[in-house]
């Protein structure tokens, strides 16, 4: 599903943040990307999603060349990608419900099905009471859950999660963890999770890519 070859990410001062990244994630595979803050985990996810251009290297998703290429537009309408951002990512002029429903509406899914799927995702993550609020009126953890709800409602095939548990209280963490574990167990979904602390997934047999600041990956199974 994901293929990275000789990937390099630069920094504004011209040095390498990451260099020589090689990664192969098969369809249905689950991968943890770990490393200290600032080592390039989030940027690596954005490169795979096609929203950031790498300094060098090849990125292929579901057989399609993203880089070098058209980036995210190569994936639009071809692969259902869900990205839960570490911060932001929800449209500020739409309510949480509208944010969750928009990708479904744009795919031309019938209104009734959109209502059911968005409602189920919001209920699963305990967001029904804030569904009509806009992101700026929500807590940071609710915004994070909103991102997860959007991924869930979309029923994404490729799921990219950027620090999905960071800043969540115990109850929210439990909900999010339950959802992510469900995705891990689902063989139809390919999952990449960027985390600073991999303890919550320690007992699960996940492949890992460990990054270390400022450069050079340690391993890529």
């Amino acid at each position, binding site marked *: 599903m994901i293929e990275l070859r000789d990937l390099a990410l630069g920094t504004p001062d011209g040095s390498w943040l990451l260099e020589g990244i090689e990664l192969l994630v098969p369809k249905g595979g689950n991968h943890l990307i770990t490393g200290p803050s600032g080592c390039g985990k989030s940027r690596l996810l954005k490169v795979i999603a096609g*929203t950031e251009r790498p300094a060098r290297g090849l990125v292929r998703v579901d057989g399609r060349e993203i880089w070098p290429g058209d980036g995210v537009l190569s994936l639009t309408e071809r692969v259902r990608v869900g990205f839960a951002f570490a911060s932001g990512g929800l449209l500020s002029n739409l309510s949480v419900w509208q944010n969750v429903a*928009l*990708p479904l509406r744009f795919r031309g899914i019938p209104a009734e099905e959109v209502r059911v799927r968005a409602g189920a995702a919001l209920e699963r993550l305990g967001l029904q009471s804030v569904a009509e609020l806009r992101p700026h009126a929500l807590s940071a953890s609710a915004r994070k859950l909103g991102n997860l709800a959007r991924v869930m409602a979309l029923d994404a095939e490729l799921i990219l999660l950027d620090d999905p548990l960071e800043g969540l209280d115990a109850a929210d963490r439990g909900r999010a963890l339950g959802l992510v574990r469900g995705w891990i167990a689902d063989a139809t979904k390919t999952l990449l999770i960027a985390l600073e602390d991999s303890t919550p997934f320690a007992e699960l047999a996940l492949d890992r890519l460990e990054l270390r600041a400022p450069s050079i990956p340690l391993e890529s199974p």
Partner: protein
Amino acid sequence: MRFLVRLGAPVRGFLEFLGDQAHLVLRTLRHALLLRMDQLAVVGGQTKLQIRFTGLDALWLVSGTALLLGAVTLIQAFSQLSGLGAENYIGVLMVLIILRELGPLLTAVLVIGRSSTAIAAELGAMQLNGEIDALATHGINPYQYLLLPRWLGVLVSVFALVVFFDAMALAGGLLVAKLKYGVTFGFYMDSVRQALSNLDFAATLLKVALFAGAITFHACHFGLRIQRSQTEIPQAVTKTVVSALVAVFALDGLIAALFYF
């Protein structure tokens, strides 16, 4: 040599800017052609919002400005030309000054002030918050969801506002002509109709199309270039206003030369 390099830099910058604009327009057109029927509701909804903001919400401002302008134009014209049979030139004056030139031009200036600034600021804020990345990642094509509705919305709005502007300016002129100089409605309208030609309609339509494109894509260009911080937003807004004004005046001059020179 250094002098030549310094001289060439702004030219290269300008050509790059034109290239970027052409790239945005062509990509938006290409992605517009790829729209599916079941996506029209979402894109149409966004277009309606843009029409409401750019067109409907600006209606009173444009109508009031046009009414005053029409009245003032006739007051000034009559004050200079009274005694020279100025009433015979009412139609020519209104068509030359208002319908041909000031109607489309002032409407575009008002839309630049109200809407292009808003579009640039909104897209810039979306870019900074990662909203555009989030849209694209989740399968929502930004050309179809953001750029196309803004373009269509501004196009429809500018067209409607120019029609309103012209109508209200003529009404303002009629008010002055009737109250101060006793010109009848029939005489006034006949005079305007005789001065109008099909060329004026064609030139106005061309202006509407080009002004709407220039306004939208200048705003999108500067808004989408914001990458680093909130402080870039006011800079982008200022650049949008200056650049769009220059573009609109340049296009106006070109069209005038093309149609009437």
